[in-house]
């Protein structure tokens, strides 16, 4: 269960709004920030708190892709796959990460350390192909020096080693 502090915070948001249910998005964010995802027990608790059905919470939670219904790894690597990143070889990067981690897209490594996900435009086109971990961008994971895109093993390994 979430901390008393977060519970109080959610209550204070809900009590300020004309309709308590309007606190849904803020509350889900607070829960996810604390736990890392929004587990079923917290969804039901929130439904009671906001005076809606558990199904209504599920509807909001499942609509937004950045809310997590399942626990993810300690770090989530988002690989951007929109046009500039696609042109600059994000698929090579994705392939390499899959092999390095031994998992498929959307999965979490067995040691629960890293989750690998595909993202639409992360807004880092100037350094395509871009990867986001937490709040940070990581770029230039490809070696483009020979004119053909090639994954830079060293740089990817360096990134993965940082994520402990």
């Amino acid at each position, binding site marked *: 269960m979430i901390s008393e502090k977060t519970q109080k915070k959610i209550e204070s948001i809900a009590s300020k709004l004309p309709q308590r249910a309007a606190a849904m998005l803020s509350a889900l964010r607070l829960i996810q920030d604390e736990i890392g995802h929004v587990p079923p027990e917290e969804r039901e608790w929130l439904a009671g708190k906001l005076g809606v059905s558990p199904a209504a919470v599920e509807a909001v939670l499942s609509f937004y*892709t950045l809310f997590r219904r399942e626990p993810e790894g300690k770090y989530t690597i988002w690989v951007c796959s929109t046009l500039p990143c696609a042109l600059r070889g994000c698929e090579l990067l994705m392939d390499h990460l899959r092999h390095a981690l031994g998992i498929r897209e959307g999965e979490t490594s067995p040691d629960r350390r890293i989750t690998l996900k595909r993202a639409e435009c992360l807004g880092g086109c100037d350094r395509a192909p871009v990867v986001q971990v937490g709040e940070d961008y990581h770029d230039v994971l490809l070696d483009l020096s020979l004119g053909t895109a090639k994954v830079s093993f060293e740089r990817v390994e360096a990134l993965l080693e940082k994520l402990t």
Partner: protein
Amino acid sequence: MAETVTLTIDDRQITAPKEMVVIEAARRAGIEIPYYCYHPYLSIAGNCRMCLVEIEKAPKLQIACSIEVTEGMVVHTGSKNVLDARAGVMELLLINHPLDCPICDQAGECRLQEYSLAHGSGTSRFEHEKHHGRKNVDLGRHIVFDEERCIKCTRCVRFCDEVSKTGELALLNRGDETIIGVFPGHRLDNAYSGNTVDICPVGALTLKEFRFRSRVWFLEQTPSICPGCARGCNVTVWAREDRIYRFTPRENPEVNKVWMCDEGRLSYLPLVARERLLEPLMDGEPVRLQDAVDRAANLLGGVGERAPRVGVVASPRATLEDLALLRRLCEATSATDGIPRFERGEDDDLLIRKDKTPNLAGARLLGFERPAAEVLREAAEGKIDVLYVMDEDLFSPAADSDEGDLARRAARKVRALIVHASFRDRVPSQAAVVLPAAVYGEYEGTYINFEGRAQRVRASMRRAGRSRTHLAILSAVAQRAGWGEWAREPSDVWKEAQALAAPLSGIGYDDVGTDGVMITGKGESG
């Protein structure tokens, strides 16, 4: 009278109450605008886009389900723009629809199918793989869900939010992955869940108890009344070859709107499952009907000091007409009488009544007021010679009151027990005469609900075996007992009921009609 406005729909001048939506105004004027998500008893969602119409001076097409009528509004429901829009909506709805009509239970009563014929193009331009969903999802006790047939109209979601107020359903996920679903681990289990099947415009939600039992076009529909409780929800009985396949609610704004509870919806199942009594019995042995009637008449008859002390237990499940003749039998035999209660659970604030019988108010109107237990106690104490019981369920071991126990004691004590019975399972072995009675669906007559509304129950099947209606049995007994010729047609017996119950005066049998009629002397008293 509410304020009205005048508008033009398809060159016709129409007057409609202010604040009415265009689709409803058109419908009442006999102009059909196609729709999926609109439902007169639910909130407006406006998501299916099928009811787009052209309104002059509006910059683009408007959905007729959410736009209110205004003075001087000019609406076109059949212009080229409108027809193009409908064809477009149909094309989009069918992109991911499996088109599995040949194995779909909704076929024959599916809006997608009907509108596809009326407004669709007949071919698809979509060349890619359809988005597939799960089929045969066990959503609740009575409900099966087919994800890929669903068009996301959200009628079922709104029903659970607004009518049953249980909120089990929601639209989950997003885009072409959107589905109707429940919270993880929850189920669509409420007392009214079957209504979601009725309002589902496609074959996404189906009822476990009906799916794959019959194509709907083979079933004959009879307007009738649900026998499941004292509410008397208006229903359509769907039957074929002397068997009921389903009940669906029939609109009556005064009684049940367009809903009914699951228990009532499935109240026909025992009629199919329980073994019928198909012939008269005397001391447990099958006999000719005439012999059984003779014996009953003899037992009740007698003269002078030899006249037996008769006790009668009426049934709140019998029709008003049945009970009128039973009242005459009471008078002819100077019987003491009573009526059992079949109660379970509590009244809720939607439809369900704890009185699980359809006509207790009718019985009270005809003077059947005393609790059956009093008559049965007298019988068990040897103060009654002949006990005449109209409903064998009185002896049911399931009867939660002590009535069942008393009834069985009374059966052992009295000199003779005469029973009208429809099923074999509860007939007490001591019965001297058992007369096979028609069941719900085999007779016509009148029920009076707890609010005092007389409603017409109609036959949709032939009587099974050598069973007879209560009316036929009672008038045959009367004739053999020398009490004269009693009417046996419900419409004729109605006149007798009028003579017995003042509140019925001035109301003809046919006045009861399809929507029922309020009886001024209210039957309910606790």
